[in-house]
């Protein structure tokens, strides 16, 4: 039972939706394609014109061969994976606990604590660097994966607090009350009732933190020195130094660093999607 007018509007809306989507996809996917293509071009080709097709495949093959011979990317990959997964998982749990009580309970200091957590996003990164390095060195964690992981715990605090508190706010309070009436303790109310229901918020916060940590190079470069603790983004920095410019290798290295991150993210996204869908059904 659709009238002609309604049909027209429906079509128009659809068309506009697809225009927005196509635009989004184009502006997002174009850079990565450009990076990958550039890794198969010579310096002169890259600098000569941005949108030329590589003349031969061998330039890129040579660059990738060089990179895998000179650098142990597998090791860097696992370092990156370990550091980002552990720091994201731990901080997600911590911030979920924090966000949960801030959202659902009244207690002295609630306002001030939330304010303090949110102002963390206002501290300029460059002003933070020195004291944090000092702290890590004092803990004897210089050049360890633990040190880097510890620093990453602190990243994304404000963002995650916002997101998670918002998520827990949208979970009806009645659920807690009935759970508590059933005899569930404080922890169980959090872990068995609220935590599963907050999955989509946890996923969003987790993905944002994970990608942030995966790409972080500033602290990783400062706090590690030996190869065994090197992460992927640090290795990338070697191709970005003054007076040495090998764009072919830089883009090849970038591809090696970025692609696993994107693959991981896409995989995780799919998983999260399904789990959110199932938890929604239970609800």
């Amino acid at each position, binding site marked *: 039972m659709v009238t002609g007018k*309604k049909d027209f509007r429906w079509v128009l*809306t659809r068309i506009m*939706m697809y225009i*927005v*989507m196509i635009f*989004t*996809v184009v502006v997002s*996917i174009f*850079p990565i394609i450009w*990076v990958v293509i550039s890794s198969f071009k010579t310096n002169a080709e890259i600098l000569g014109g*941005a*949108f030329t097709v590589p003349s031969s495949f061998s330039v890129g093959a040579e660059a990738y061969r060089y990179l895998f011979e000179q650098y142990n990317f597998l090791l860097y990959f696992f370092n990156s994976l370990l550091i980002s997964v552990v720091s994201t998982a731990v*901080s997600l749990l*911590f911030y979920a606990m*924090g966000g949960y*009580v*801030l959202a659902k309970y*009244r*207690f*002295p200091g609630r306002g001030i*604590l*939330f304010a303090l*957590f949110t*102002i963390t*996003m*206002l*501290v*300029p*990164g*460059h*002003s*933070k660097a*020195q004291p*944090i390095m000092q*702290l890590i060195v004092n803990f004897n964690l210089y050049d360890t994966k633990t040190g880097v992981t*510890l620093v990453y*715990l*602190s990243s994304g605090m404000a*963002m995650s*607090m*916002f*997101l998670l508190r918002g*998520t827990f*706010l*949208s979970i009806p309070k009645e659920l807690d009350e009935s759970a508590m009436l059933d005899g569930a303790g*404080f922890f169980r109310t959090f872990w068995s009732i609220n935590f599963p229901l907050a999955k989509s*918020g946890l996923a*969003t916060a987790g993905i*944002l933190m994970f*990608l942030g940590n*995966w790409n972080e190079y500033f602290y990783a470069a400062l706090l590690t020195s030996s190869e065994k603790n090197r992460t992927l983004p640090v290795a990338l920095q070697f191709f970005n130094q003054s007076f040495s410019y090998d764009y072919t290798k*830089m883009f090849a290295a*970038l591809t090696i*660093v*970025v692609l696993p*991150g*994107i693959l991981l*993210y896409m995989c995780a*996204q*799919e998983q999260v999607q399904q789990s959110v869908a199932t938890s929604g059904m239970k609800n």
Partner: protein
Amino acid sequence: MAKVKQPYGKVEKRYFKWIYLFLLPTVVIFAMFYVQPIWTMLWTSFTKWDGFNDPTFNGVSNYVRVFTNSAAAISLKNLLYWSIIAMTLHVGFGVLVAFVLYHHPKGWKFTRAVFMIPNVISAAAWALIYRFIFDDNVGLLNGAIRKIFPNFHLQWFYTSPAAFWAVTFTWLFYAVIVTLVVLQDLMAIPTELDEAAHLDGCTGWQMTRYIHLPLCRNAVGTAILCSITSRISMYECIALTTAGGPGDDTMSLSVLLVRAITDYNYGYANAIGVIMFIFGLIILAVVNKVFRMGESSLS
């Protein structure tokens, strides 16, 4: 908004120890990684400090220097404009994408996943990409414009006032955080609500305007907050493209801060840091008030 503060009930009090236990990890992280930096930044902003040797107190002279500096004035002006653009166009675009994705058109999952990619590419590579987009001779943008106006020539990053807009375009459409935050709130809307509205005869547009948009107030607030604070701290997309130029046209406080560090003027750098911090606090307070954040949007 004046609410009478109710005293804490017996049940509430019983949970205090749990509550503080839950907050403990976050508080510890905050204490470790933020208290010291914030404190150092604050007090050394009143000193002359090279970042290494003992600082010497010099009153508010660092602040006087910031406020008498013409580049800092331009930075503040730019920050204001960029904040407005972030709040309107940038967040607007992110929200738009979120609403489109919420209706699950074909390929929405793919779009959502792909939208994240720009955030994963290192800033140095971005700088190079932008230079090719905005280059006069081989650039994509001017190439396209010249299809219509054959005599068009403009060095986007290197002439005023085009440079301001070129820098703006480096982040304008990359609003994936806004989209994710809003989308997450949209998905939390109970399906019953949609169904009820549908039965009441709400059309798709009306539903969006009167039901969905108000319900993701919190998310939009968060998004605005995050996008403005990232404008305050925005560094690489300026430093690696225009470095604040031409002249001081696209200058930002963060670029000035790093310049001061380059010259080992840490006291001055931290004074700039404090100003950025205070600007952020003001934004935080205003957005919180306007969007009544922290209250459940369902109530």
